[in-house]
């Protein structure tokens, strides 16, 4: 049991290293969200502290979303280059490989969350009690799980090329419609009502509530849990289908 656990973490460590060495990953999940956050909040004289806080949470969520989805790109890549097949002939069971990947996802979302929160606190002067910072970071971290599962599902189901395209579509679609870039209040009514069903909107909503010192609403929690279950099923089915052919 302990060897199983240490093998899984050793595998996750290897995959985390590989992910962080991917320059495309670093730029798109650290550079882009931080830059967009600073641009959106400092152009056009938007000095409203509430907006700076809300945008900070939105962009941190956007960064975490991108990092979580990119996990699928890695899986699809390793499916095509034979690494997943090579892993199958090591004593490591396929289940531990997936667990290690999910663990990788849980770690590689942290830099984007941290970077945007740091930019908020240090550059944009966002102020909150320490406990609230911790709560916001934790909510962003845990809330990214459904997207990690979505990324895994894409990676196991699709070819590398298709995974890239689908990830970009999921990333932009969920970010924009979920109100991570622009507040949902600016949306026409019909789009706002669509937004309220998206996992990204509920993800950011929960973290924003904490940033404003409120407790996240049960609707948000229930919807997020529902999406997590849906994406989890998608990931499990995709994995099982591909496990036979890897």
């Amino acid at each position, binding site marked *: 049991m302990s*060897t199983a656990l*240490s*093998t899984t973490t*050793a*595998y996750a460590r*290897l995959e985390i*290293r*590989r992910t962080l*060495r*991917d320059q495309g990953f670093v730029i798109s999940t650290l550079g882009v969200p931080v830059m967009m956050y600073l641009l959106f909040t400092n152009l056009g004289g938007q000095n409203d502290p509430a907006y700076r806080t809300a945008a900070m949470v939105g962009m941190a969520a956007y960064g975490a979303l991108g990092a979580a989805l990119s996990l699928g790109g890695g899986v699809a*890549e*390793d499916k*095509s*280059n*034979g*690494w997943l*097949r*090579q892993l*199958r*002939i*090591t*004593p*490591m*069971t396929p289940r531990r490989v997936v667990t290690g990947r999910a663990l990788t996802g849980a770690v590689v979302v942290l830099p984007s969350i941290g970077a945007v929160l740091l930019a908020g606190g240090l550059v944009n002067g966002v102020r909150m009690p320490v406990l609230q910072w911790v709560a916001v970071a934790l909510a962003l971290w845990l809330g990214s799980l459904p997207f990690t599962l979505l990324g895994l599902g894409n990676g196991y189901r699709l070819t590398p090329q298709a995974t890239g395209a689908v990830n970009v579509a999921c990333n932009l679609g969920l970010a924009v419609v979920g109100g991570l870039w622009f507040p949902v209040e600016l949306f026409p009514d019909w789009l706002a009502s669509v937004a309220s069903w998206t996992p990204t909107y509920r993800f950011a909503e929960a973290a924003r509530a904490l940033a404003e010192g409120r407790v996240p609403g049960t609707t948000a929690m229930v919807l997020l849990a529902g999406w997590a279950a849906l994406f989890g099923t998608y990931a499990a089915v995709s994995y099982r289908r591909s496990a036979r052919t890897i």
Partner: protein
Amino acid sequence: MTKEPAAVFETVTKTYGPVRAADGLDLAVRRGETLALLGRNGAGKSTAINLLLGLDTPDSGRVVLFGGEPDRAVAAGRVGAMLQEGRPVPRVTVRELVGFVASTYPVPMPVADALSLAGLTALADRRVDRLSGGQAQRVRFAVALAGHPELIVLDEPTSALDVEARGEFWAAMRGYARRGNTVLFSTHYLEEADSFADRIVVVDAGRIVADGTAEELKRSAGGALVAVDLGGAPAAFLSGLPGVTEVEVRGDRARLRTADSDATVRALAARDAIRGLEVAPLTLNDAFLALTRGRDDRRARDTGQGTTQDAARATAPNREPIR
């Protein structure tokens, strides 16, 4: 005391669409032997290896690895393998990769040993995806060795290596086999099978067509080659001579494959047909061609059409390095 075999195929079949990639394979791999699966591209070597490793399941029959299911032997860390189709793993160094794979095995080889056996010590901190094809092939060899497995399975292990690297590779492999480990490799290089294997299993169209040492293979393919000049005489009578199994005429010279060279030569002498006589033992190459060609002829007769191997050869004539 006889030990149970390392691996056993019991009448294993596997079909991919219309292709019978394994067509009733029966084979027992003894412990400690170095066995070559020899065959052309598309003969079914990789299929046999994938079945052996549990990467694929047979349509019928059974594969037993160390007395149980292949998955169990793999999970117990008794097998290391080098697959054919792998590309380098991106963004990882040689040491990280080999070290990680070693760590998944219960009793691995020290990473430094695996690196040195594969000739990678100087490249340990280089990224795997930035190595040359031959170096990357050595990384895959180190990955196969890292767990210190009892059985090592190598699918076309030297296809990307130059002559010198090939020599080094086989030296390392021999060292590993000498420690009592079992080695199974597939190849389409006859010389490799001849020089490095204790036992050669010739696979063709998903079947085992011969099994034995190089000498036994040559014998089973039918003895020797006899060549004579025709001196303008018609060649028709040659195929009726005792022992002759095949006649090939090039210009004025006839080359006969014979199961009994003595009888053939006596018959030639009786007909006063000895001109520029040459008698030579069959080379492994001749034996291989005879063993595999025989099947093609039979199949072509059976089905009235060419085989998948013929098609493969027609589309990829340069990829047939059997010499």
